[in-house]
């Protein structure tokens, strides 16, 4: 069983199959978790790199999560060993050490309530994946991601073979 995460799969040959910066993922995430409009409360964020490059980033669901290791109160816990790290809001003191520890910045401090907040895959049906109009977000795992990369490389090998 492979650990699940929401992954970003762009096809850079297809201008309609790359992140369009619509930020619907952010909007729907905050709607789902907090019933408001507030993309800064989303557990997925679109990062603007400039010159037309935009990439959504969210929790990788690490095998050995630095956030979990860092938490001084035990507010972070992983009830299902295969599942995501979750937050007990009543225990969390909002120190943000977990925010600092996450290598990809996926742990957030909720700007309204002040507690740690992160992707929880929406009980297995991630809303960002469902609502993304570019269809570049997928519920995935490392095996699928590796396969995707291998396929790209395999195509390259095949195409190089045809040139000879």
């Amino acid at each position, binding site marked *: 069983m492979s650990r699940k995460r929401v992954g970003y799969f762009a096809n850079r040959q297809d201008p309609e199959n790359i992140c369009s910066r619509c*930020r619907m993922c952010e909007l729907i995430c905050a709607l789902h978790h907090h019933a408001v*409009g507030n993309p800064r409360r989303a557990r997925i964020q679109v990062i603007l790199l400039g010159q037309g490059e935009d990439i959504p980033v969210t929790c990788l669901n690490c095998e050995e999560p630095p956030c979990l290791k860092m938490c001084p109160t035990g507010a972070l816990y992983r009830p299902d060993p295969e599942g995501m790290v979750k937050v007990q809001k009543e225990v969390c003191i909002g120190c943000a050490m977990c925010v600092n520890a996450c290598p990809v910045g996926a742990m957030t401090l909720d700007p309204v309530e002040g507690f740690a907040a992160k992707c929880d895959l929406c009980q297995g049906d991630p809303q960002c994946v469902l609502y993304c109009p570019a269809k570049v977000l997928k519920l995935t795992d490392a095996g699928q991601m590796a396969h995707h990369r291998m396929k790209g490389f395999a195509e390259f090998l095949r195409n190089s073979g045809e040139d000879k």
Partner: protein
Amino acid sequence: MGSFAGGYAGQILYVDLSTGSLQKKDLERDFALKYIGGRGFSSRILWDELEPGIDPFSPANIVILAAGPLNGTPTPSASRLTVAAKSPLTGALGDANSGGYWAPELKYAGFDAIVVKGISPEPVYLWIEDGIAELRRAKHLWGLGIHTLGERLKEEIGDETIHICAIGPGGENRVRYACVLTDGESAGGRCGIGAVMGAKRLKAVVVRGSRDVGLADPERFKAALDSYRATIDGEAWTETLRRLGTPNLVAHRQTLGIWGAKNFQRGTIEGWEKISGEAFREKFLHKVMGCMGCLVRCRRYSIISEGPLAPTYTKGPEYDTINALGAKTYITDPAVILRAHYLCDEYGIDAQTAGSSIAMAMELYERGILKKDQVDGVDLAFGNGGALLHFIEGIAYRRGFGDLLAEGTKIMGERLNAGYYAIHVKGLEVDASDPRGYVTRALTYSVATRGSCHLRGFPYIDEFIKPEEAEAFFGTASVSRLEALEGKGKMVAWSEDWVTLADLAGVCKFAWYRSRSFPMLIKRGLELMNETLVAVTGLPFTADSLLRCGERVYNVEKLFNLREGFGRESDYPPQRFFQEETPDGPSKGAKLNRADYDRVLDDYYEARGWDKKTGQPTPGKLRDLGLA
């Protein structure tokens, strides 16, 4: 949210640049119910608080940036901002509408609108974060182009996630049609709102917000969202807009022969395939882009990577910039058009009026009315891309002939005694298409309350509505016949009330107010819009009360223009459309008929409850709308 259950922030920020004072005022429930938001707020506040007859560059002018109740919610395509002032280009009501991400951020920062008065003694920018506003020195930022300004502000504030509404050198130099740009790429283009900001020495309004925008009934909202989403795939416009963006209209214009090419001397363009939606997609498209929450994604992000104009990275092009910078000037080099689009953004000038002004000058040059030594020694013939790029810069810095071009076509016409070649209504240049063969389009463009505008109404209904639908809805099947005149005035008036709702709520017309199915126009633009507004705000809007809001806003705008001296004669298309036939192509021979136009204008005034001679709303109409 103040006293509102959702949608509204409940606060308007008042800024007096002359004294440096900042003040928060509560948004009144009654005001929200009657005007909804966005352009409704800006038009009513300008009507209430602006003295008539003032110089738009004086401290007495007011700039308003207004969001609607849906901005900031997960409503699809609720991205749009209205900026408004008395226009220095027209002297009438001026406003522009910009997409992107700024209006939602204003809501997250705790405000529904910003009202700016006075003139700052020194250049400033307004910084707003989570309910707190302050004016900051901007002398070191004055003179910067839009893109460099964005980088500097992010460095200075220390945050890349800010959102910026700014002017470029065009606004600073009071080009009469200087625009505002949000986040360096989304233009609030027309009417010169950027020039008013420049006169006020307001370089930018920068926002950052982390507050909630509430939803009165989240479950009802989610259902409405999903209902809207279900309409996306079935609507033909979705795919067309996603695939080609607004440039899809290039082929349409050529097919019908309704370009206003060469300053409205031609209906078709030789070499048009080079500047079609397909051509831009093939040569320059990096990816499609969507404004905040948009499921359609009509925007383009383009890159010129080879040739003399490389590298150019830009949002765009749009049909309107291809039309203004390519069709009007008869330039069919797509790289030049894209570069010109980018420069209009960088300098902060409206591409429409810039292209129109240069095109008018090109015609005057070819007719010998303008001589080479008057136009910087440039061979200002149609098709000269180098001239276009030269004068865009000249306009922004008011250099050489650019100084006259910076005044717009109406003033150019007055100064050069060549008013016939100035193709505008009320001083705002005709965009979109040549309406000589389409009297309902001509009417819509000409009665639009900010000057010639294709967005103020929706005249295309008579191109696709079915006879039985026309009968049921407008009382006559004649509305379904393109060439018929009966009922068209009423149709245009209704379409204005209806499409204005987009500007009040803060949503994009392409996502909510476009279809070639009349039932779909009603379903999305009225029924789902009503459902969404009620679910978000908790206010008791109905489809009827919404249309009354659209009508009310339109009447306030008419009152504003009447007060500034714009009577019935200002609701006419340019003389050229009545006098000259389209000489070529599928629309060869098209010409507006004066008697026909008078008739539809009469019918329109009657449908609106306005005096036929003056355009003045009757006392009965004003009482009906609560404006007496």
